């Protein structure tokens, strides 16, 4: 059975994404948008998992990488003739060039990686609360700069006119790609070393693991995936600075925590489960019929429910829905340290 488990750990999440994509194919067009959005969320949450789940260090700053990825892909894939209307102050290099869909996604990933490297080089020395506050600072700075620096993007405007290429196919392929990368990393030497530092930093250091270097590697990889997911996001719907800020930070962290931060399976399950609840409530806010009853919830119910869910899961089941475990044929003894975050 043990030899089969790794295969299951990869195929489980992939299959789940496939099922979500199938659901997206059979439902109505308006519901399809929710499914695509959920799949992009999977990519973001898997990116979060690569760093937070494997290192146990909290980061509030990952949505910054999603934001710069979205900016890079959005600015460079908007048709040249549309740019002056939305981004009148754009630097000439960005104004005169346009990239195709795939290249813009690759660029988003590259920009995410570069930014994560710049941020991670100093910040990975911190842990615990210091890391939490410092990454929050990164989010604030990124949001602030993107909002007002009109040479590199639309500033307060919204990325309308970006080609909407993130359909069901691109979103599910993107989410699967993120899962494969995360899985490969987790199974690699680096992933295992970082996992060791999460469980016991002192012991890991004693056998010669550089906690700093391992965390930095994971941070850059997770920044790459987050930037890529940002590219998917900007090709899905008109993004602005507010859509890649506190609300997205909150909801993606909630997905990771509700699913179970320490496993890839948990990240995917959490992202899809919370997205499902969230989409259902979003529909209900505009009025739907369920089991013959008409349900019409006031606007804002979504975040109340998701916030309550997240608090409940943290209180009742701190390791998340999946218990932070990967998928396995045989249930092993539950690990005690699964929710451990670095102190």
């Amino acid at each position: 059975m043990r030899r089969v488990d790794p295969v299951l750990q990869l195929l489980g999440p992939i299959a789940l994404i496939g099922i979500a994509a199938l659901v997206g194919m059979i439902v109505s067009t308006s519901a399809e948008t929710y499914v695509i959005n959920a799949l992009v969320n999977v990519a973001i949450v898997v990116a979060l998992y690569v760093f937070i789940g494997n290192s146990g260090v909290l980061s509030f700053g990952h949505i910054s990488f999603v934001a710069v990825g979205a900016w890079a892909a959005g600015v460079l894939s908007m048709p040249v003739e549309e740019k002056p209307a939305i981004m009148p102050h754009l630097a000439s290099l960005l104004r005169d060039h346009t990239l195709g869909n795939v290249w813009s996604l690759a660029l988003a990933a590259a920009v995410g990686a570069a930014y994560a490297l710049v941020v991670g080089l100093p910040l990975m020395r911190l842990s615990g609360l210091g890391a939490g506050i410092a990454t929050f600072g990164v989010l604030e700075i990124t949001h602030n700069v993107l909002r007002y620096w009109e040479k590199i993007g639309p500033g307060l405007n919204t990325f309308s006119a970006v080609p909407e290429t993130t359909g069901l196919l691109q979103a599910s392929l993107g989410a699967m790609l993120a899962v494969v990368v995360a899985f490969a990393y987790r199974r690699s030497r680096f992933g295992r070393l970082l996992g060791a530092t999460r469980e016991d930093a002192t012991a890991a250091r004693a056998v010669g693991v550089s906690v700093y270097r391992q965390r930095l590697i994971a941070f850059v990889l997770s920044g790459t995936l987050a930037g890529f997911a940002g590219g998917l996001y900007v090709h899905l719907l008109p993004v602005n600075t507010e859509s890649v800020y506190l609300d997205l930070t909150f909801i993606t962290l909630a997905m990771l925590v509700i699913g179970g931060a320490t496993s890839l399976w948990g990240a995917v399950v959490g992202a899809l489960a919370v997205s499902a609840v969230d989409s259902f409530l979003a529909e209900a806010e505009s009025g739907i019929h369920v089991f013959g009853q008409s349900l019409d919830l006031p606007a804002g119910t979504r975040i109340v429910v998701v916030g309550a869910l997240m608090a409940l899961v943290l209180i009742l089941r701190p390791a998340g829905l999946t218990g932070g475990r990967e998928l396995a044929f045989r249930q092993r003894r539950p690990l005690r340290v699964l929710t451990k975050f670095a102190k």
Partner: protein
Amino acid sequence: MTVAVLGIDWQTLADAIGLGAIYALMAVGIGLVFGVLRLVNFAYGQLVMAGAYALAFASERGWPVSVGIVLCFAVVLALSALMDQIVFRPLRGQSPAVMLVATFAVAFLLQSIALLWFGPLGKISASLATLNQPVTISGVDIRKIAIVATVLAAGCLLLLVVLLGRTRVGLHMRAAAMDFRTAELLGVRAGRVIGAAVLISGLLAAVVAVMLTVQTPLVTPDFALRDTILVLAGVVLGGMNRLVPATLGGFAIGFASGLLGGALPTDQSQYLPSFLFAAVILVLLVRPGGLFTREGQQAVERV
């Protein structure tokens, strides 16, 4: 009459001190609870927000100021006790990061409840608006609220010093903040200490609510959210593990925020959050244990 340096006038200076004083009170509220529970309360700002809504509620109905303030205290204290019972208690023993994420969720929950309840447009709390008018002291105009905030904060801090230094409960709280297990073994009652910390922290949130609504009379669901983020940064910056450094950190970030906001030219002041948080990150990197802690008190380990 202006101070020559950087074009900062006395008005800006007074406002910065006033803001620093308010942030210092918030820092104490967060620091006290952290001391006994090891819990960073991200939802502290939502206590302030609830108090501000209570004030706006009273002001809209034309109730006298005193009734509004009493209502504000009642709402904030009730919510604070509720938060302790429902959220903090079951989370005891978790790592600080887990608790930070949990209170992050509670903050969003309360904020969206406010959004559902009162709508996104906000309510006006105008009953104390007269405090915004300036008084003239030797030719310098200073807003009354800056003076009131500074005096009130100084008074609160003084009371707190007396409480912590001269009373039994204060002694117990300090002991619990230093080492909860040992303090319990020596006969400190955990429930009472935690209750006292939550109560005082709630009282401070109510005071802050009253003063912030004078500065910003428009109460929206994200009221005090910005301030909480800044104060949290200030508290970590000053040194989370001790109350005095945490308070100084809160004051410093409020003062810096007020001063920079006044001193930066308009086209740069939009980047104020970037300057502030860049400074915070820099300090965290150079002194991860806190800016105002002495060597040897630093509990933080670098990797």
